[in-house]
């Protein structure tokens, strides 16, 4: 392949690149792997910040009547924790992985629109910094990550935290949308020869569907943020009842973004699981078509379920039944996925790597989160449990036990590809067990707190029977999670320098990213291998008998 002509232009470009300093190289890069890495490092940093905020919250709630944080500080911190984890961690973390992996998995040289890609990252980072600048500017936002009007309006949030919040999210939203467009264009146009849409790796499938969901959902948020800013700065009345606006309108707008957002935060994790489980079970995914199609079903349904966040508003029974029914329906394709993952393991030869452990933990934890989700779709149960700690438990089961465990499976799975070195399996298992136990300790008891009547978003609570003990268990669990994250950070830092060399394909996996070196060269592939099925590297290894 040494005969591939390199145009003079390209040579000139790389000569110039060599002159740049390391910093310049990262700042000016349009390489999808570097941008992906920037996303991952940035989100890891924000994850630590959001995690510290979570620990502050748990310290304050450790026992009834604690005075560690006052209400004002507590409200800023829980708002920032939610906003950070959703907008600065989970979504960009998944975008970062998608950014790094999509071109590699489809045998492309880079994203279709590399400069737009760089723009997306930097506008996201700028948004994140702007959000945190609000602390320096006097007052962080304190109306919750959902910022319900009229509490978020000037009359009730007089300081400028919410303006920072709205502007920051606007920037982040623009970055997210442009990345989604970029991913769609890339996946449609840059697949290597033979990689038809029905042979795409499931991770790419889910990223693809997810990107459409982003384009459908995020503009609703951006529009309502602008409306909120107009209300706050120019004294309009979109969301205030005085002057003819409607506070409930904000809720409709926000959740018509916010519920698809939940799936935006989980679909790529489904994709990761759909890569990890087959490889470590040594079997192809069970029901490829059903897993892919159920993703489309979830995406479509997710656009019509938002009002299940609003069953307590008093919308009227007809609306509640309609949205309850659509929300119940979404459980079906999700359940189908779980069954397919389990069936993939059936009859396999399972390797208990850290990555696989996280994938299995994902299955179990996400099932709990999914089932508690069904209880919200059941309208009368929602009337009891909404806005309580039951919801806090549910959504952490989905987002932490679901998405984050999925991402952890992905980190242990792809770290060797990205760095060229293996993460320590021994420390990985320590990390896994600490995180798994800490997680369930923190959040399982919260189901009972919620059912017993503890509302969410309270900075303290009365000393009712059992509440103190359960909150203390939860706080201890949170610190166990904190320790597990330190183990992860140490593992990454040490393995990055002195881990075992990975080689091209340490897991004996089947998708295209494992056909190139670890880490991949700037141009990804000298030549992408031929693709004749969904598992090109399996086909390569089994030219005769290997059915795919």
């Amino acid at each position, binding site marked *: 392949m040494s005969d591939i002509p390199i145009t003079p232009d390209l040579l000139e470009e790389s000569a110039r690149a060599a002159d740049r300093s390391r910093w310049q190289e990262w700042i000016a890069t349009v390489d999808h792997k570097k941008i992906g890495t920037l996303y991952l490092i940035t989100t890891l940093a924000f994850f630590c910040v959001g995690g510290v905020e979570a620990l502050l919250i748990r310290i304050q709630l450790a026992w009834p009547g604690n005075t560690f944080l006052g*209400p004002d500080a507590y409200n800023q911190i829980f708002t920032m924790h939610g906003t950070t984890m959703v907008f600065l961690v989970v979504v960009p973390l998944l975008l970062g992985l998608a950014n790094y992996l999509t071109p590699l998995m489809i045998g492309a040289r880079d994203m279709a629109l590399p400069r737009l890609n760089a723009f997306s990252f930097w506008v996201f980072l700028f948004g994140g910094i702007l959000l945190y600048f609000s602390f320096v500017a006097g007052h962080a936002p304190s109306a919750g990550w959902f910022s319900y009007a009229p*509490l978020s309006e000037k009359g009730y949030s007089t300081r400028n935290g919410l303006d920072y919040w709205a502007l920051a999210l606007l920037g982040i939203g623009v970055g997210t949308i442009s990345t989604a467009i970029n991913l769609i264009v890339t996946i449609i146009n840059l697949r290597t020869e033979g990689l038809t849409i029905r042979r795409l790796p499931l991770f790419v499938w889910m990223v693809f569907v997810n990107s459409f969901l982003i384009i459908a959902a995020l503009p609703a948020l951006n529009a309502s943020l602008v409306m909120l800013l107009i209300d706050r700065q120019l004294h309009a009345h979109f969301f205030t009842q005085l002057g003819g606006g409607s506070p*409930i309108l904000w809720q409709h707008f926000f959740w018509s973004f916010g519920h698809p957002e939940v799936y935006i935060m989980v679909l790529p994790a489904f994709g990761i699981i759909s890569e990890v489980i087959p490889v470590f079970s040594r079997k192809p995914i069970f029901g490829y078509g059903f897993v892919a199609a159920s993703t489309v079903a979830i995406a479509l349904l997710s656009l019509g379920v938002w009002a299940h966040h609003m069953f307590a508003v008093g919308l009227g029974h007809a609306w509640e039944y309609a949205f309850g029914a659509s929300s119940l329906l979404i459980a079906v394709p999700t359940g189908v996925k779980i069954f397919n993952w389990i069936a993939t393991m059936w009859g396999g*030869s399972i390797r208990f790597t850290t990555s696989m452990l996280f994938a299995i933990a994902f299955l179990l934890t996400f099932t709990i989160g999914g089932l508690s989700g069904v209880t919200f779709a059941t309208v009368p149960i929602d009337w009891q449990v909404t806005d309580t700690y039951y919801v806090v438990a549910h959504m952490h089961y989905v987002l932490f036990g679901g998405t984050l465990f999925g991402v952890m499976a992905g980190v242990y799975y792809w770290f060797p590809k990205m760095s060229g070195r293996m993460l320590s399996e021994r420390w990985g298992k320590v990390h896994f067990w600490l995180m798994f136990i800490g997680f369930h300790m923190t959040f399982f008891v919260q189901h009972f707190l919620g059912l017993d009547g503890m509302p969410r978003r309270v900075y303290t609570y*009365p000393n009712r029977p059992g509440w103190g003990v359960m909150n203390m268990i939860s706080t201890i669990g949170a610190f166990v999670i904190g320790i597990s994250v330190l183990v992860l950070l140490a593992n990454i830092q040490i393995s990055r320098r002195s881990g075992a060399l990975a080689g091209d394909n340490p897991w004996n996996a089947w998708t295209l990213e494992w056909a190139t070196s670890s880490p991949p060269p700037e141009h990804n592939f000298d030549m992408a291998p031929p693709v004749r099925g969904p598992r090109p590297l399996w086909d390569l290894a089994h030219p005769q008998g290997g059915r795919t």
Partner: protein
Amino acid sequence: MWVCAFILAVVTIATFYILVRYRRRDDREPDQTTGNKTLEIVWTAIPLALVALLFGLSVMTARAVDHKIQRAADVVVTGRQWWWDVRYGANAITANEIHVPVGREILVEVDAADVIHDFWAPRLSRKVDAVPGHPNFIWIRADQPGVFAGACAEYCGAQHAWMRFRVVAQDEASYEAWLAHQSTGAATPSNGDAAVGAKRFGELTCANCHAIRGINTQKQYAPDLTHVASRQMLAAERMENTPQNLRDWLREPKVVKPGCYMPNLKLSDQDLTDVTAFLETLQ
């Protein structure tokens, strides 16, 4: 719930069974099965039937909980940052404490005066948002006498945590007696610290926000104090209603409940004694 528990049990047991049964034994690659259409259809159909069942049950329950409203509300509860205004008709006004007769359904109208709140007495009824300009109605019913906890369940700002209330369920006779008593006005005390306190209550501008029926009828921005001493708790369940707690609350409201709208009027010890004595007469 038991449906959920059953599904969770199935998934968990299946997963563990598979993990044990199919853990790696050797390096041979297993059979490369790719799917089974019949199985897929079966495990799509079963959840579909389950959610259909759940939907039917939820419609039935919802209709039972929110049955038809055929009369005016018995009590109007209005959420304010961060307390509950409670009105039985025009004359009986109280705060953060709702009395109901045992065994009889009470229709509650839930309103809000500023931001969105949520009225929730977990043991007695569903929760419902208090949305400004959009009254909601719910039924509450206590089958046993007792005190039932309630809380604001929608995040509403600094003191969301201490925007709690209680529902006192009592037999029909005591309920009627309570209601009759709450409907009467208060009398100005004629002597002692309390008489001075009543005077100071007006002079210190307390009366600009708090109404005491029979003594002043100012517009209300703050809880009605006509029978404040008869209530069990202070400051939306922040503390018990004792003379000492009341005095602390008057002295430093922002310490007791940071962020609340009650100003610190920097009362002197004498004023504190007088005003507390006055308020304690408002049985």
